[in-house]
């Protein structure tokens, strides 16, 4: 079974960078896949990788990370302006961040328009079915 946990932007909005990252990593360490509203800042993404590396152990093998974000190059001026106002009023809620534990998520393939998430478990399930035959 794969568990997804949704993290609304409100939950992390007022947290410091370190607390945001810890909150997300703690969920991932419980073998859950985080679906977060919005995205981390670029520096926070790098910090997330750094802290993940610090915490790697026999049990925790790292994360798979992917961010879907609207392509600003494809937006017209009115969309860009609207995005700026929304960000100013409500914070940067645009986009979606997916973080999964490496023990559960095999890989996340990201194309500009879609994300494909491959789990390790589905492979195991397939093997089990094969054995039954």
């Amino acid at each position: 079974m794969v568990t997804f946990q949704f993290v609304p932007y409100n939950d992390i909005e007022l947290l410091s960078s370190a607390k945001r990252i810890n909150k997300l990593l703690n969920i991932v360490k419980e073998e859950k896949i985080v679906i977060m509203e919005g995205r981390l800042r670029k520096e926070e993404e790098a910090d997330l990788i750094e802290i993940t590396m610090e915490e790697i152990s026999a049990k925790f093998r790292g994360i798979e990370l992917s961010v879907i974000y609207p392509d600003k190059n494809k937006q017209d001026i009115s969309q860009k302006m609207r995005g700026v106002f929304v960000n100013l009023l409500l914070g940067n809620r645009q986009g979606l961040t997916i973080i999964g534990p490496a023990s559960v998520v095999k890989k996340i393939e990201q194309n500009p328009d879609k994300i494909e998430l491959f789990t390790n478990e589905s492979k195991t399930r397939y093997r089990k079915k094969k054995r039954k035959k």
Partner: protein
Amino acid sequence: MVKEFFKNLLNKLSFNPFKRKTHVKLGLYGPPNGGKSTLANRICQDWLGEEMSSVSHIAHETREIKIKEQVNIKNKKGKELTFSLVDTPGIATRIDYEDFLKRGMKKKEAKSRAKDATKGVIDAIKWLDNMDSVVVVLDATKDPYSQVNITIIGNLQARDIPVLIAANKVDLKRANLDVIHAAFPQYEVVGISAKYGKNIEDFYEQLFKVAK
């Protein structure tokens, strides 16, 4: 006389927007097994006549920052640039010692490699702030839309560090430069084969443009 006065004044204030950089700290960044060390070796072979790093098909061969000082590169016009070349460990979000076991390593060796690799990733990220220019080395046969690539380039952009993307392994049939161009349209992309030296002259020319 007035021109000289302002020139001296700017020099005294250590700020001269017209001064051309002559010594650049150049970092090679990217995901594991993209060919950073192979490119570092190619540059050092071409300009110093010696190699810099060991290379391997197994990921995370480079697990600590390696620096080669005083690498002098000349372009076609005869202009010279001196680099401190910094070869960094590949940046990854997951490191599993069992992956090394699958490549034929013994458990103790695999665990030690994984531990060193995690330290290497941390060091590589910490060193981002020290770079004047960066070459992001990507494997042209692989999907460039990985979050690691996006995070590296995003962080360089946030730090205002000039970036050149080297799409490596263009000697392989599966290499697709168009996808890399499409993924990072705002950056200069040079297709190279660091292993065989293909298109390396173009790479040096682009390096001059980015690092100046």
